[in-house]
C-alpha cells in the first residue's frame, strides 16, 4: 500500500512548501522510528555530487535528526539506469524505510515506485526529478530560476539604458529536463520583453572547461555581447570574458564559489552578476521530508525549495561566499526554515588549513 492522497495543508509548510496551488498531498502510514535511509546517487565525479554526499552524511549526524535515522547508506551507481533501479530495488528488498535518489533519467521508475508502494517504502527523488506525480519529490523550480536570471539581466540592462542587443545563452547538458526548463524560462522572459534581443546560444554542458571554450568561440565570432545568461559552468563564463578582454556585462549564473568571488571582485567594473543555484543541500531536505513522511505527516507531493538568490548587491565574504576557499564548491547549503544549517565551509573545509 502506497501513500494515500489527502488534502492539505501539509506539515511544516515553510520548509515543505507545495510546488503550486494544485499540488497533491500524500500521507503514509506512520512507522516506528528510527529509520533506515538509503541514498542512491547516480554519477559521482564532480564537486556538486561530492558535496551532496558529504552534506547527506553531515546532516544524518545533525542532532535534529540523528535519533531518527538508525542507518544511512549511500551508493553511487554511475549514469546507468538499470544499476540505479537495481540499487533502489535492492534497498527495498533489504527493508530500508526510505530511499532518496537523484534520478539518472526522468522516466523509467514505474517498477520501483510500484515496489516501494507495496513495501511501504518512501521513495524521494530530488534534484533530477521524475516526470510523475506518484512519488514525493523535492526540487528547486528550474523554470522560475531561468526566468529570474533573465529578469535580472534585463533589469541591469535597462538600468544601463540598453534596450536591444545580443544576449549569449549558455545551455547545459542536451536532453536534460533541467536544461530544458531553465532555457524555456530564460527565453520566455526575453521574448516577452519589448526590446530587440538577439539570442545566441551555445552548449556548455554545465562544465567549466567546455563552457569557457564555447563562450570564447562565441566572443571571437560575434564580437561583443550585452549580457550572458549561463545555466552552469559559470566560472568558465567569467574566465572567457576575462581572457577575451570583453567588457564586463551583466551575467547570470550558478552558485559556484569562484563565480561569486568574481562578482564580488568585479561588480564595480560592471560585472553585475546574479547567482542562483541548485544546492547540494537539497539532499538534506529530501532526507528530512522522507523522515517526516515516515512519521505519518501530511506531505506535499512536490516540494518546492526556495531559490537561493544572491546578486552583486548582497554578496558578503564569509557569509554567502568564501574568498579563501576553492572555486569549485557550491556556496548555498543552508535552508533555515527547514532547520538545515550545514554551511558550505563546514563540510568542504574539514582540513584545518582551510578553516580559519
Amino acid at each position, binding site marked *: 500500500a502506497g501513500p494515500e492522497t489527502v488534502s492539505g495543508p501539509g506539515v511544516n509548510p515553510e520548509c515543505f512548501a507545495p510546488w503550486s496551488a494544485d499540488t497533491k498531498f500524500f500521507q503514509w502510514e506512520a512507522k516506528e522510528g528510527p529509520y533506515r535511509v538509503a541514498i542512491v546517487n547516480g554519477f559521482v*565525479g564532480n564537486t556538486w555530487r561530492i558535496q551532496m554526499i558529504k552534506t547527506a552524511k553531515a546532516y544524518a549526524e545533525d542532532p535534529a535528526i540523528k535519533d531518527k535515522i538508525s542507518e544511512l547508506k549511500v551508493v553511487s551507481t554511475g549514469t546507468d539506469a538499470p544499476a540505479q533501479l537495481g540499487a533502489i530495488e535492492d534497498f527495498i528488498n533489504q527493508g530500508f524505510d526510505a530511499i532518496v535518489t537523484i534520478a539518472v533519467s526522468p522516466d523509467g521508475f514505474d517498477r520501483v515506485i510500484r515496489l516501494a508502494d507495496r513495501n511501504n517504502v518512501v521513495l524521494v527523488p530530488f534534484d533530477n526529478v521524475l516526470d510523475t506525480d506518484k512519488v514525493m519529490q523535492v526540487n528547486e523550480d528550474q523554470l522560475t530560476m531561468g526566468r529570474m536570471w533573465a529578469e535580472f539581466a534585463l533589469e541591469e540592462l535597462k538600468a544601463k539604458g540598453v534596450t536591444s542587443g545580443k544576449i549569449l545563452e549558455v545551455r547545459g547538458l542536451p*536532453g536534460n529536463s533541467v536544461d530544458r526548463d531553465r532555457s524555456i524560462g530564460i527565453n520566455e522572459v526575453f521574448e516577452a520583453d519589448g526590446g530587440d534581443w538577439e539570442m545566441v546560444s551555445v552548449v556548455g554542458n554545465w562544465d*567549466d*572547461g567546455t563552457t569557457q571554450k564555447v563562450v*570564447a568561440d562565441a566572443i571571437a565570432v*560575434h564580437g561583443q555581447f550585452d549580457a550572458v545568461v549561463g545555466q552552469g559552468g559559470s566560472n568558465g563564463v567569467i*574566465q572567457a570574458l576575462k*581572457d577575451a578582454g570583453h567588457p564586463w556585462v551583466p551575467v547570470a549564473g550558478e552558485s559556484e564559489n569562484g563565480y561569486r568571488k568574481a562578482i564580488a571582485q568585479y561588480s564595480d567594473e560592471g560585472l553585475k552578476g546574479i547567482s542562483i543555484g541548485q544546492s547540494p543541500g537539497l539532499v538534506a531536505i529530501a532526507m528530512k521530508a522522507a523522515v517526516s513522511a515516515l512519521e505519518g505527516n501530511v506531505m506535499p507531493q512536490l516540494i518546492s525549495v526556495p531559490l537561493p538568490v544572491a546578486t552583486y548587491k548582497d554578496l558578503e565574504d564569509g557569509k554567502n561566499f568564501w574568498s579563501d576557499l*576553492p572555486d569549485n564548491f557550491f556556496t548555498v547549503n543552508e535552508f533555515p526554515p527547514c532547520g538545515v544549517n550545514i554551511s558550505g565551509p563546514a563540510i568542504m573545509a574539514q582540513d584545518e588549513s582551510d578553516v580559519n
Partner: protein
Amino acid sequence: MRISVSNENKPILIASFFIVVILLAGTVYTLSTAGTAPLLSPKYLLQQLQTGSFLGICAAGMMMVILLGHIDLSIPWTLTAAAMTATAVGGEMALPTALAVGIAVGMLNGFGVAFLRIPSMIFTLGVDTVLRGLMVAQTGGFAPQDTATPLMLFLAKDRILGIPVALFVWAAVSVFVIVILTRTGFGRSIYATGSREGAAYLSGIRTRFVTMGAFVMSGLCASVAGVLLAGYSAKAYQGMGNAFLLPAIAAVVLGGTHILGGRGRYIGTLIGAILIVLLNSVLSIMQMPEAGRQIIYGTVIIAMLLVYGRNQRITS
C-alpha cells in the same frame, strides 16, 4: 601492395584540405547570417590553436601508444589527477608534481600492459577508474586548493609576441615527439614493437621497456595538457579531462596513424587535432544541435578514412 611515400602523406594532405573546407563552410555560414568572416581572422585562428593545444598534446601522447597497437583510456583522469594534485600542492612544486603524476600513471599503465600483459584497452580503463576514485576521495576528504599557479596561468593564457604561450608549449611537445619518433632508437623501436612485438623482441629490442616508455610519454603529455587546461580555466576541477579521450583517438586516426600500430606520422596527428578542434568550433558556431553534431562527427571520420584508402585485405 606498395606503401609509397605519397601513400603515407595522403591522410595529411586530405586532412589539411578538409580543414580548409571546414573554415570555408563556417565562413559561408557567418557571412550569410552576420555578414562577417571572423573565422579567417588571425585572432580566431590563434584562439582555436590555443585551446586546440590541450587536445593536441593529449593526442601526441596517445599517438605513441597507438603506434604500439595499444590504447590509453586513462588520459581523462590522468589529466585531471595531474592538474588537481598540482594545484593542491601549489607554488613552485606544482608543475613538477603534475609531471610526476603523469609519469607515475604512465608507469603503472606500462607495467600492466607490458609486464602483466593485460590488454591495454582494459587495464588503462581500470586505471582511469582508480584515478577517478582517488580524486573523488581526495575532494571528499577535505577541500584541496584548486587555483592555478601563476606559472600555469602564464603557460596557458599569456602571449609572447601576440602568440599564445600554449602554442609554444604545443610546438615544443611536437618537436620532442618528432625527434623521438624519427631520430632515436626508442622511437624506431616503438614502430618495430607496434608492427610485430615478437619479432622486435627477438631482434633484441627491449619491448617491455619500449611499451612502458610509450605509456609514460602518454601520461606525461596528459599531465602537461592538464597543467595547461588548469591554467586556462584558472583552476583544476573534477572531470576536466572527460572531453579529451575520444577526440584524441580520432585526431590520431584521422592523422593517418594505423589503429593497430606500426604506422603513422606525427604531422598527421598534429593536423588531425587541428581538424577536430575546428570542426567542433564551427559546429558550435553554427549552433548545430547535439544530434546533428554527433552524426556529422561520425560521418566525417568514416568518410575521411574511406578517402584515405582502404586497408589491404588479408590473404595470407
